[in-house]
């Protein structure tokens, strides 16, 4: 029991179990150390912290949630960007032309007939690749946890893998080689994400990342299906009819996986403390 540990033993065990990294880690350790110093290394103060692994788990959980929220905020930009790409496709099909590229200097290697769609497709293909690799990385990181929620992880993996062909097709349509050039960057992104997730509560962060990737690509698939249905002709990335049906099936799988992933999320409630009445 932690009450039988000295302050230094407690701190050592706590430091081993704490997975928070960076300045947040330094701050937590310093605060706990300062408290024990002020309490004179008192056994009651050590006992008041409870079990070192449990205390570390509380901090790990708290910081993993905060980190996941930041990822959610950043990844939320990907869905609208990809959706805009399909809106562009719709404009081409309906009106036969696109506005010129808004920022010509951004892509100096492009030919003179570069247009807004080409430029936007280049940007969104890149961001889509990042989202796909993060989804795969989430799966890789989550595989290390024995309490893995398979539906959410499998949905994430399926989505990441099946979203890649449309993205590659989009890049091809844009006349760019970015998809191939992005492969080393995608691999680096996977490795970097796995390393970062290793220090956190992996399952929860992985589920959050998977959820966001699913939401982003689900939006893209919805737009693709809508364009196909409205126009009666294939959208750029759904040329064969078999692919269209595949996209519909994927949309259904995304919806089911999204619902399951949402149910696996834990709801954080305000912590309650046990107050002790001292006998007089």
């Amino acid at each position, binding site marked *: 029991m932690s009450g039988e540990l000295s302050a230094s033993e407690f701190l050592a065990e706590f430091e081993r179990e704490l997975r928070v990294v960076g300045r947040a880690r330094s*701050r*937590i350790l*310093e*605060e*706990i*150390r*300062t*408290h024990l*110093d*002020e*309490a004179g290394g008192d056994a009651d*103060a050590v006992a*008041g*912290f*409870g*079990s070192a692994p*449990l*205390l570390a788990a*509380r*901090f790990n959980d*708290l910081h993993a949630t*905060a980190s996941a929220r930041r990822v959610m905020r950043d990844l939320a930009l990907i869905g609208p960007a990809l959706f805009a790409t399909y809106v562009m496709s719709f404009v081409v099909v309906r009106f036969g032309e696109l506005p010129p590229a808004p920022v010509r200097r951004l892509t100096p290697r492009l030919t003179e007939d570069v247009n807004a769609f080409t430029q936007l497709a280049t940007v969104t293909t890149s961001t889509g690749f990042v989202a796909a690799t993060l989804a795969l990385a989430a799966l890789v990181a989550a595989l290390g946890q024995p309490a893995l929620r398979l539906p959410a992880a499998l949905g994430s993996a399926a989505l990441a893998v099946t979203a890649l062909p449309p993205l590659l097709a989009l890049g091809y349509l844009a006349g760019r080689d970015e998809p191939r050039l992005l492969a080393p960057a995608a691999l680096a992104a996977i490795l970097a994400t796995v390393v970062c997730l290793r220090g956190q509560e992996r399952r929860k962060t992985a589920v959050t990342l998977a959820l966001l990737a699913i939401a982003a690509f689900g939006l893209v698939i919805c737009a693709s299906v809508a364009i196909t249905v409205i126009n009666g002709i294939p959208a750029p990335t759904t040329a064969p009819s078999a692919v269209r049906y595949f996209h519909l099936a994927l949309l259904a799988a995304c919806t089911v996986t999204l619902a399951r992933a949402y149910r696996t999320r834990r709801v954080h409630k*305000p*912590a*309650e*403390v*046990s*107050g*002790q*009445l*001292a*006998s007089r």
Partner: protein
Amino acid sequence: MASTPRVQLDLLLLAALADGPAHGYGVIERVRLRSGARLELLEGSVYPALHRLEAEGLLASRWVDGTPRRRREYEISGRGRSRLRERVREWRRVAVAVESVIGATA
């Protein structure tokens, strides 16, 4: 040892910090003194809660010089004061309701 009541940790921490900034050890002492030593917050609950409240924007913190080492001092924010007022209202409503139920039971 008497029975252990369960209280809202957030309410206690925000109320303790409403009087002025304090570090973790100071907050625990403040609650202990103001409750007449009837409530002793557990360190293992307090520090994660302080971090969580800060992440929610209800508290702000900074390092201040101390002896033998510097301390992390917490201060309640404007949002924290609003949340405190809400929690106090809720607590008083609950307390009145519970009192009505238990009545004059000794």
